[in-house]
């Protein structure tokens, strides 16, 4: 078990990095929704974008509660590249989906960066429970997109 001060230091860094990533993900998903041609995918992306935005807001609130700043941000080139690709009308939805699902082999892997932290949190149990549910959300997002992508690739589908 780490000392509370040591735990706080790495938890704050993790929360801020995750907050920045979730906020950027919500923004990129918003750009994708605006150009998405598949009704079913668009509906799910709306809920997933809200989920990511909720995570970013919850993490920012938690950082403020524990007196830590929110100053992490995604590399601007990475952010701009993602916005350009996922917000593009010329990149097919299938290609965007393939990019997302290629990041992890399964939903457990998608959750692992967060569940690994949950398992190490001994002192800040409020943050631990927030992260436990955020991890579930990440797993659900990945599972839905992977299943939809597999459905699109199934032979016989228009």
């Amino acid at each position: 078990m780490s000392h509370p001060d040591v735990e706080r230091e790495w938890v704050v860094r993790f929360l801020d990095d995750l907050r920045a990533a979730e906020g950027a993900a919500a923004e990129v998903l918003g750009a994708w929704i605006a150009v998405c041609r598949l009704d079913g995918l668009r509906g799910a992306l709306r809920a997933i974008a809200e989920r990511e935005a909720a995570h970013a807001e919850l993490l920012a609130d938690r950082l403020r509660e524990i007196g830590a700043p929110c100053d992490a941000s995604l590399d601007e080139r990475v952010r701009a590249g993602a916005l350009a690709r996922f917000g593009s009308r010329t990149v097919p939805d299938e290609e965007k989906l393939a990019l997302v699902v290629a990041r992890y082999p399964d939903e457990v892997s998608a959750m692992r960066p967060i569940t690994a932290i949950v398992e190490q949190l001994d002192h800040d149990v409020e943050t631990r429970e927030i992260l436990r549910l955020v991890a579930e959300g990440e797993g659900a997002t990945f599972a839905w997109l992977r299943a939809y992508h597999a459905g699109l690739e199934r032979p016989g589908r228009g």
Partner: protein
Amino acid sequence: MLQRDPGPERARVIGLLDAFQAAEHAGAEAVGRWISACGDPRLRGGLKVIRARDARHAALAEARLRALGGVPGARPSRELAALCGVVADPGVSDRSKLAMLLGRLPGSAEEPLVGLVRDVESDAETRALLETIVDDERASLRWLRHAFEELEGENVSSP
């Protein structure tokens, strides 16, 4: 024209979305009041996520029903309002609130919502939106069970 006569299927979906947004809005408000009175940091953490998701589900459902030409106006049922009253009451213990919620939803919290999704046949966007929301509801239920089991375990082990 569409807004005045949306057709039976669309009108039915609008009605389902309206009832759902009212329920999620009431749930988010009740959980928010529970958080204010909750002294257990573990519970507060999970409840904060549940409140945030419920509030966003309400907003998503409202946005969708407006996109379909509807106007939100539903109120939560009397039964749901009573349930929310218990959840929001600072005089009721955390353990009782969890037991009541889990007792009311013994199998799966999302069951009514799963029925709602099944009923949305010809609107792929609304259907996928609700399917994705079901995933959040499942996660909330799993976490509520986990929290209840932790509290029960502590009661058993304390002298």
